[in-house]
């Protein structure tokens, strides 16, 4: 008696076009006559199809992550650490105004509050 794993081996060979003509015709007749076997084949196809689609999705995720990382690294100016250390030693960094300035994202509410307090600051 065939096990489920035996059927999977048969289905894989069938789908890969590896059955001899007589075997393929016999299987197709059985599939037409046996709904349980046809259902088993559909489940096999759904399972292996989903596995393959999962693999493609993972590969696409990695590609997009790599594209994004490239894009971000091109946008971010590289800090020349050797130059900064040299300037630091000479005490030039802050004097020349070249110190990296932190970029803060400030919410609109925060901006309004700052503007409000700016205009109400005691002289």
């Amino acid at each position: 008696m065939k096990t489920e794993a035996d059927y999977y081996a048969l289905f894989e060979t069938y789908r890969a076009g590896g059955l001899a003509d007589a075997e393929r015709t016999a299987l197709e007749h059985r599939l037409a006559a046996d709904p349980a076997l046809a259902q088993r084949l559909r489940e096999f196809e759904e399972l292996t199809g989903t596995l393959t689609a999962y693999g493609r999705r993972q590969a696409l995720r990695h590609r997009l992550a790599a594209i994004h990382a490239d894009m971000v690294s091109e946008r971010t100016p590289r800090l020349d650490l050797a130059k900064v250390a040299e300037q630091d030693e000479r005490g030039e960094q802050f004097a020349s105004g070249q110190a990296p300035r932190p970029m803060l994202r400030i919410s609109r509410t925060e901006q309004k509050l700052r503007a409000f307090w700016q205009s109400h600051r005691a002289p």
Partner: protein
Amino acid sequence: MGKGQPSYTDEEFVAAIRRDDDRALAQLYRLHFPMISHYVLQNSGTDDEAKDVYQEGVMVFYEKVRDGSLELSCQIKTYLYAVCRRLWLKRLAEKTRFGGRLDDYEPFLETGAEADLELAEEKERQLGTMAQSLDLIGEPCRSLLEGFYLLDKSMQQLTDEFGYTNADNAKNQKYKCLVRLKKLFFNQYQESN
């Protein structure tokens, strides 16, 4: 477009992605990211959330192009905007039970993205269930199935890697693993329905 890269029209993008052209995908990604990033940041999102939403949107577009089911009735830009807008609304709703108004800078057009997203969400659920099932199946089944179905390794390569005496033994093990995976996958998939 910079960096000496060719610029593509929408039709050329679709044709290039259909033949799996990496440069076109990278260029498309770079072209529309600022629009989606701006939109998400304007609507209570972070940089990371903008990246996640955009990548999901690009995946929906890419997979529709690749399987030949994309019916583009608008510009790619508008399609991506509609998909990402919907994805971001869904995320906001999950995150904060958001019921407010989104700060749109383009009128929301009928793009067919709604129907595409429903199919994409179903596919996402199916692939999520597959990921869980692979997590549960244990070794060596996980590596064997991933090797064959995800990494396209041959049975001979897997036989050598896993130390099976011959390719037939490795194949038999693979079929047994598939039977185990089937039980896990369909049980979980039905539970999530």
